[in-house]
């Protein structure tokens, strides 16, 4: 995978422009809140980069909203902040006007739709458990369980502090394959469509005859109807002929899943 290492860095550096506005339900009528513009890294999660947004809007909010858990919506849809920022962008804003306008809320947290991620502990726990799941799919004997605690921490802090080298120094071990065993057991992936729940299945990187499986093979297992769909991964419109093993090694998010956004044509 060393040949294509530049791709990893390019994807890591990807950012999306966001225009945060405060929901009209939250404002005290003293003064009209100023919007907040920021570039958000694709690989991170919203709860990890809202501290400044929060500080900015707190001065405009009503008394009751102060101190409440922040949540976001786009066009009336609450954003599942446990999906990476890039996934939410590809899913909801792929053809929206830029910057992407997101509404900030403090009251009426939709508990039946969103996970509570206000504390760093909650976000870290969610991230690490997703990463462990990907590891269990890829390897019969999991790698994460053989790592030291400090390696787990380095994965997390690498993501948290946006440090590519720090993260990949450990993540490399989760992505490595050998010449005698060049494939993962299963490919960790989830397929997303707007207004629908994500789909996750067991898919191998090679078929029974040892032929390399491609993105087209994966999509056929998820959507047997052969309909033509636009497929976006990490903001890139992906060729159906891309081999799954290569995709998993290079286009996974930090949680080690390939998050595939699919749009009806």
């Amino acid at each position, binding site marked *: 995978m060393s040949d294509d290492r530049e791709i990893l860095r390019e994807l890591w550096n990807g950012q999306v422009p966001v225009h945060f506005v405060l929901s009209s339900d939250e404002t005290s009528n003293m003064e009209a809140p100023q919007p907040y513009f920021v570039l958000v890294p694709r690989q991170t999660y919203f709860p990890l980069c809202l501290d400044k947004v929060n500080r900015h809007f707190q001065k405009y909010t009503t008394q009751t909203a102060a101190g409440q858990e922040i949540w976001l919506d786009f066009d009336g849809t609450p954003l599942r902040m446990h999906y990476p920022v890039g996934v939410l962008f590809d899913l909801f804003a792929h053809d929206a006007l830029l910057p992407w306008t997101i509404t900030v809320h403090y009251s009426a947290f939709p508990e039946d739709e969103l996970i509570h991620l206000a504390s760093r502990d909650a976000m870290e726990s969610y991230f690490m458990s997703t990463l462990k799941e990907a590891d269990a799919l890829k390897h019969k004997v*999991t790698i994460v369980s053989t790592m030291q605690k400090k390696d787990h921490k380095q994965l997390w802090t690498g993501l948290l502090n946006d440090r590519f080298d720090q993260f990949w120094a450990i993540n490399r071990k989760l992505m490595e394959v050998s010449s005698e065993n060049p494939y993962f057991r299963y490919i960790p992936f989830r397929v997303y469509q707007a207004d629908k729940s994500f789909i996750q299945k067991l898919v191998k990187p090679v078929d029974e005859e040892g032929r390399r499986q491609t993105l087209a093979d994966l999509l056929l297992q998820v959507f047997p109807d052969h309909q033509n769909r636009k497929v976006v991964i990490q903001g890139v419109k992906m060729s159906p002929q891309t081999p799954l093993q290569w995709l998993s090694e290079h286009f996974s998010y930090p949680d080690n899943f390939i998050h595939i956004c699919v749009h009806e044509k």
Partner: protein
Amino acid sequence: MTTLEEYYAAVADFLELSERVGDGWSRFSSEDIRSPCFEMIRRRQTHSRRLTADAPPDIIFFDYHVYFNEAFAVPQLLFSACRPDGSLVPLTTLHELIPKHLLPEASERELVWETLSQIEHPILHCPIYALHPCQTAAFIRKIRSFSKSWLLSWLSSVGPAVGLELSPQYGIISHTDNITSINTLEHPIST
């Protein structure tokens, strides 16, 4: 590792026992489930306790789900916990409810987070609390070396950590030689 077929067979056996005990475990079925259904079973339970003798009772409605986690190839216990007004019981409260004897001594804050957290339900896609499945495979392997009713043994071992009660009737009804004491095993939620 457990195969899906082994899990199906264990669920069938468990539901048969549950019917005789009469504690309400049932298969979950829903028309709008799009993902493959890994034979989810569920049971509702009301938990009531008084912190002090004259305090009003603290009531929690639990809804327990067991499904087959394909990635780890093990059953997984999920649950929701609500107050009578419909609000969610916060995770920090549930962390406090884990009986201390089920956690290793000097249990760190981190360990609790690695054990129990909120996730997106793998089948229903709503928020749900989940016991992490990474230690389950090793535990089930040990149980299966002596217990035929391994799903019951597993559930009765991990359940009490999150308020799930299983009647002693299970032990009386099923053959006593199937359910050996599991006290000698390392507990699955301790790492």
